[in-house]
């Protein structure tokens, strides 16, 4: 099969397992103009990472759109404050663009302090704040001093890279903040959980497992976290990273700065979850922890396996396509689909890294199409050519999938049920079953839209 793409420049972002083993493949670079990339911007990357910090104010310094489109954007759950679910904007207007927006930003912070007295405010830079050259750092510094709170700038001007650059900007802001706190004495059996945003309670599920294993979770970055919990992060002995795309950088910085080692984990699917829990237990090398871990794995597997087997009967032999944000997540999804007897035939990510794509190619079946920064037209082409029955992707991909008569799994910020851990594995299987085996497809596969 030839690639035959409408946009020749896109060919180097795509390869096929087996067929194109030695072909040039690039990723993690600028999107091709006009290709209808599904990617977002630097600001978006930063916002999604920091947004779950629940007692913080998230203030966007820019025109209104940036705040409108990201208001309450993630279904992150909170056990405390709900302040993070508001979207604050300095709402820059034409005159601010001409004369500068620093004064307005400063006033915004005054008003927010007056109303909410928060301990922590994140101020996000946007394209426009960057281009007009507002000194956000200076404004933040001054306001911090004025109110004796933490006003933290986030360097997330939209045009300085892609979403991954935003993850990094967010991690830098977190690090800057944490460096201001006193460094705590290490607690032996304690852990920070990085890269879980507590969508539909996912971080709670994993925290529950870790507690059952006899480990203490100090800080989650950033699901269900708050100002006080961030202060405890330096006391941990280990960082585990679930969403590798957004948080590996922070974990590395923690290792450098606070001498806390890290490991990548995945809690998607039974196999990855069990492996990850064992890996964590092995790190602590504590007999009691290991025993408890094995007990947990046994109990949970016993609970989840039969349910998943039940769904597998209906799903075996179906073909799936994956298009998600990060490469690590894609890798987990491949395994998770396999647990259900489903082959993955197309795999793409928005922001996957080189090593992740290598891993994807290693574990993918022969003939699987692998693509970086795919656009709707390529997804359509390859899903048709490869005969995909199901697509796992984000909100924008959902409607393409449906219009093509293909079942769809919501692997996005919006989902209302957890996909992590054993409970999540059951939900995943149930969701795949729900969409792939729905009676509606009977009416669209043949004889489309004809009454007689």
């Amino acid at each position: 099969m030839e690639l035959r793409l409408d946009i020749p420049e896109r060919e180097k972002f795509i390869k096929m397992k087996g067929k194109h083993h030695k072909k040039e493949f690039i990723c993690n670079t600028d999107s091709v103009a006009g290709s209808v990339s599904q990617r977002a911007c630097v600001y978006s990357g930063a916002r999604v990472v920091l947004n779950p910090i629940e007692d913080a104010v998230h203030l966007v310094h820019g025109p209104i759109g940036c705040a409108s489109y990201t208001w309450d954007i993630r279904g992150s759950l909170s056990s405390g404050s709900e302040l993070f679910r508001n979207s604050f904007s300095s709402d820059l207007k034409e005159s601010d663009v001409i004369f500068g927006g620093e004064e307005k930003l400063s006033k915004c912070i005054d008003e927010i302090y007056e109303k909410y007295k928060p301990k922590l405010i994140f101020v996000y830079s946007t394209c426009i704040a960057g281009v007009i050259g507002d000194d956000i750092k200076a404004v933040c510094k001054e306001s911090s001093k004025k109110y004796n709170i933490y006003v933290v700038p986030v360097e997330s001007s939209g045009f300085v890279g892609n979403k991954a650059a935003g993850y990094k900007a967010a991690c830098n802001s977190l690090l800057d903040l944490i460096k201001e706190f006193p460094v705590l004495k290490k607690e032996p059996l304690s852990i920070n959980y990085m890269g879980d945003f507590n969508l539909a309670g996912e971080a709670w599920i994993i925290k529950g497992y870790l507690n059952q294993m006899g480990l203490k979770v100090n800080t989650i970055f950033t699901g269900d976290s708050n100002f006080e919990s961030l202060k405890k992060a330096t006391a941990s002995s280990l960082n585990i990273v679930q969403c590798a795309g957004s948080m590996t950088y922070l974990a590395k910085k923690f290792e450098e700065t606070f001498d806390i080692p890290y490991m990548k984990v995945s809690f998607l699917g039974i196999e990855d979850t069990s492996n990850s829990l064992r890996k964590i237990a092995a790190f602590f090398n504590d007999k009691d922890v290991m025993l408890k871990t094995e007990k947990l794995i046994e109990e949970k597997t016993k609970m989840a396996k039969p349910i998943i087997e039940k769904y597998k009967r209906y799903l075996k032999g179906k073909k799936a396509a994956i298009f998600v944000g990060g490469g690590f997540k894609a890798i987990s999804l491949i395994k998770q689909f396999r647990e259900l007897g489903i082959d993955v035939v197309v795999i793409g990510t928005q922001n996957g890294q080189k090593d992740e794509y290598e891993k994807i190619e290693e574990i993918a079946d022969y003939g699987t199409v692998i693509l970086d920064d795919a656009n709707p037209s390529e997804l359509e082409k390859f899903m048709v050519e490869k005969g995909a029955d199901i697509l796992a992707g984000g909100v924008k991909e959902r409607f393409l999938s449906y219009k093509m008569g293909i079942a769809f799994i919501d692997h996005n910020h919006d989902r209302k049920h957890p996909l992590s851990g054993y409970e999540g594995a059951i939900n995943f299987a149930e969701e795949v079953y729900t969409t792939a085996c729905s009676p509606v497809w009977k009416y669209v596969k043949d004889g489309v839209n004809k009454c007689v």
Partner: protein
Amino acid sequence: MYETYKSVNENPCNMCMPLGGIIAFRGIEKSMVLLHGSQGCATYMRRHIAEHYHEPIDVASSSLNEKGTVYGGEKNLIKALDNVIRVYNPNCIGILTTCLAETIGEDIDRIKSEYKTSRNISIPIITAPTPGYGGTHSEGFVKTSYRIVEELSTDKERHDRINVIVPNISTADLREIKRLLELMKIPYILFPDYSDTLDSPFNFPYKKIPDGGTKISDIMSMGGSIATIEIGINYEETPGKYLQDRFDVPLYKVPIPIGLRNTDAFLKLLKEITGNPIPKSIEMERGRLIDGMIDSHKYNFVGRCTIFGDPEMVYSVFTTCMENGIHPLLIATGSKTQKLKELIASEDNPLNDDITIVDETDFSHILKLSEEKEVNIAIGPSDGKYLTEKGGIPLVRIGFPILDRVGGQRILSVGYTGTLNFLDMITNTLLENKYKTYRKDMYEKYYKAM
């Protein structure tokens, strides 16, 4: 009574200009939109529009990076145009600027002309300046519609059709307006007609650009129409105004025909312009609406409402509430509009004189005022779920966007039939409110307290 606003916006009540522009361009047959700016803008707007319409929304971006921002984005824009043509083969391309392109001062008209000449491109490429800081999505919609007509309407040869120019209303509303025109046997050009492109039937094989939209040849001949009926009364610089100034096409402006009076005004105007009678079947729809209004009038009278959203929609919802004894207490929009304030102030208002009107506002302010006024129902787009969650105020969803329900793109509210559908939603929400606590309330009030 007017409220002033503050510096910070807490929970925006509007989106930005290019979003409205995208929807307007979707109303042209086989068109494709390109945003000149950073990648994120296109993605965010696509996501928002896709979730409202439940349709794939392909919008290209010139994906400006740091280099493009510093040295100019011409190269990116040209490459983007090339790629859009390669993949989508459209009959028309719209270029919308974003904040970024406007701030760095991109001369998109020059770039476009040079591009068309050098590539020998014959399809129309229409530019519209839509910086996000220049206005809301409502203004973006009108401004882009204006630019499309200004660019394409060149043919002044007279014909017997009338122009019907619409604001951002639902796809079901567009279809209803067409149905009424057809029932009255009136030849028309409806613009921008996104009723099929943004609400397309399922069909194989998948089409990258869905069928439907106003034909380019029709837009070209809008200058030769008998008259223009422009639905929407809030804006001055409109496509209808352009056609009047440039081609002497008489312009008639009417509110969105939601509610009895507004629908009457719309149909009366159609009758006056064309001389065609209003058929019996439409009169029966009118009678059915009045019958329904009477059936629900006592239930409606307890309604104390907040109305928010686009100025055009807000105005028509307001008059509909007034007709039915639902007390409007707070009128709010994210747009800046003196006109809306004047229109509402000029209404004869026997129900109460306690109406507050706020423009350029946000939801934190709307919530505060709604609570102060003890509002018991809110009417507007789905972001108003904030009022339900924080203030316990039930929400009747109408307008754009509706992101948390299915079918938001096809809520019918225009014409007599649409009005009744919409009114029933309001009444039933009020009834549900009442029955939720009725037994308990009465018990507390008359048994326990007596």
